[in-house]
């Protein structure tokens, strides 16, 4: 095959020159890089590659150029003597480039690790330097933060209205907050220490502590467990207990942390609300019945009275009609009481003095068969304002309460009537307290129910307290009872100073 020599020649000569130029430019860049960071493994690698390739470019290109020149000068023998040297140098440069490349990845990884470690050391060094320089300030800041934190949590502990309690696992009290101490010492000196005592002493149930501690040990915590605390004054208090086990650095052994919430008032309120709901339902029911019965009773009474006019009073039929009239009147009274309980008619309010009403009522009761052995005492507050109320209805309430009190004390006893302005000043309270036989606990929730009575048949209709309840509610007030068997009862009703307009 015959071919042109010029492509080979030109590519060879130009390529050789370009190889030298670019190899040395690359080497120059590498040298500049090395000046910036002589320890960088990547720069060193590139330096070795570029250096070897520069040597290769010189060796090979000079060799090729010499070859071309010597061949043109017909000095082949001289070229043959130089050729092995050039080839050997080329071989060496290949091996150098390949070798550094082969170990580049491993070196690079090691270098990466070194750089990372160096960086971490530098960061640690900087931190140490900073800490050394600012140790005092840091300690002060830290102390201030700790004090603030301690103060914050101490405040929570101190001002909490719920009991916060820390005990050993055997129940021995380590610390307790003021609210807890106050609850435990209810009725006693609230500052008396309870630390060191066993928490189980304050639990009403003998098995309560065992159950609580067992559940905490098994589950790690106990949540919203309802139980009764036996307080120092002998009373019981319904509480909601949550607790957990904790182990802190300061305390070697595990401790129990409790949060105890007093729910006595809440439960009482819930009961009162349930009672109010029940009475409202009964009221609606009673009102419906009373309306239906009232009309036929009116007709019966009307016709009876019409017949009475035409009868001779001496006749037997006249007496029969009178009996009918009497019982119909009695029925009408009951129906009216039911309607009063259901508060179907709005009270006609006028500004009145409650003390005058109470005095009138006492006089009325004394006049109607109050045994002399029963003392009725009054303790009137002097700063009560006149309030708007239906005088007749409030009198009816007072008569009902006094009559009940007289029945309760029996032949001998004491009835006390107190009036006060509530601390908030928005209502007056009237309390009728007796030293009678009291009301059993199971009856307390039913005393305002219509037709509920503990009196013998024929002695009472069981509507007195229901009617009173309806009247007081109609005035926007409240009526409640505290009673203890064999010690007596206190009926208290509140009347608002600014009367609330009843919804009914």
């Amino acid at each position, binding site marked *: 095959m015959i071919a*042109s020599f010029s492509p080979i020649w030109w590519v060879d000569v130009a390529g050789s020159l370009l190889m030298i130029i670019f190899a040395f430019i*690359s080497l120059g*860049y590498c040298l500049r890089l090395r000046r*910036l960071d002589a320890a960088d493994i990547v720069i060193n690698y*590139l330096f070795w590659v570029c250096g070897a390739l520069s040597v290769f470019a010189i060796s090979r290109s000079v060799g090729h150029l010499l070859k071309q020149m010597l061949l043109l000068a017909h000095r082949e023998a001289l070229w043959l003597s130089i050729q092995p040297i050039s*080839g050997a140098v080329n071989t060496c440069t290949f091996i150098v480039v390949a070798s550094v490349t082969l170990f580049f990845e491993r070196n690079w990884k090691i270098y990466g690790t070194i750089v990372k470690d160096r960086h971490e050391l530098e960061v640690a060094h900087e931190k140490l330097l900073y800490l050394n320089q600012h140790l005092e300030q840091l300690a002060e800041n830290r102390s201030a933060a700790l004090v603030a934190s301690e103060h914050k949590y101490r405040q929570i502990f101190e001002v909490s209205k719920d009991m916060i309690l820390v005990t050993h696992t055997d129940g021995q009290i380590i610390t307790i907050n003021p609210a807890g101490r106050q609850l435990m010492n209810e009725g006693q000196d609230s500052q008396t220490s309870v630390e060191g005592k066993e928490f189980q002493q304050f639990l009403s149930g003998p098995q309560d502590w065992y159950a609580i501690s067992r559940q905490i040990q098994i589950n790690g915590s106990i949540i919203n467990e309802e139980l009764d605390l036996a307080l120092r004054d002998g009373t019981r208090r319904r509480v909601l207990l949550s607790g957990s086990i904790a182990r802190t650095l300061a305390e070697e052994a595990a401790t129990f942390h409790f949060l105890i919430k007093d729910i006595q008032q809440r439960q009482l309120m819930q009961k009162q609300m349930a009672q109010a709901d029940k009475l409202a339902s009964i009221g609606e029911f009673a009102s419906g019945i009373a309306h239906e019965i009232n009309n036929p009773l009116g007709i019966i009474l009307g016709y009876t009275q019409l017949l009475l006019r035409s009868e001779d009073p001496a006749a037997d039929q006249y007496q029969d009609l009178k009996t009918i009239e009497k019982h119909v009147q009695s029925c009408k009274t009951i129906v009216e009481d039911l309607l009063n309980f259901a508060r179907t008619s709005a009270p006609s309010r006028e500004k009145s003095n409650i003390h005058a009403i109470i005095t009138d009522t006492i006089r009325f009761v004394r006049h109607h068969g109050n045994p002399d052995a029963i003392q009725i005492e009054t303790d009137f507050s002097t700063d009560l304002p006149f309030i708007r109320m239906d005088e007749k209805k409030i009198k009816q309430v007072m008569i009902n309460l006094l009559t009940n009190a007289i029945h309760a004390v029996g032949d001998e006893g004491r009835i006390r009537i107190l009036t006060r302005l509530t601390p908030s000043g928005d209502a007056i309270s009237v309390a009728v307290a007796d030293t009678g036989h009291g009301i059993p606990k199971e009856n307390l929730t039913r005393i305002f129910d219509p037709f509920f009575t503990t009196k013998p048949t024929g002695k009472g209709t069981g509507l007195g307290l229901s009617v009173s309840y309806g009247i007081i509610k109609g005035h926007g007030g409240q009526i409640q009872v505290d009673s203890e068997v064999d010690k007596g009862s206190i009926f208290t009703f509140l009347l608002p100073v600014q009367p609330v307009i009843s919804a009914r």
Partner: protein
Amino acid sequence: MAPLISGHISGWIKALYSRCGPVICAVAGVFFLSASPVLATQGHSGIEGVWVHQFAHLFFLFSMGLLIFWLRRAGLVKKTAWRYIQNAAFFFIIWNADAALVHFLEEQLIAVEMTMVGGGQVRIDLLRGSDWISVIYYLGKLDHIFCVPAMICLMLGVRRMLADHRHETAARGEIP
């Protein structure tokens, strides 16, 4: 302790000599008493240099392939500088393959012979094989079209790396 060990070793040598002594003496006699060429140092004339050079080309090629593999695995080719260096490695692979092929045809297989015939012409005599080998050989002789781009890519890569390095140094607020 030392006398004990040395005594133990000398005892072992004595036992070996007593068992193998005659055989060792016979082999030494064959080597030292018979007439033969001196082969103490191996010669490296002839084709051996070409083989070494070819191995160097293959080693270079292999290392460049490995470099590309590492660069891609490490994700470094996302950076422009390393991408240039990857291209350089790719051209070096082609160049090494080309150079190794030409050396093989010319000096190992001795399949072609190129002679100047004057008038700016060369004659390529095919000593063995097919006609296309002459064409391959002729084109293969133009190996600079692969190694020069490789060198350019390497230069661009290093230059970019220098620029990046300076930029990072400036960004850190240091004097480059």
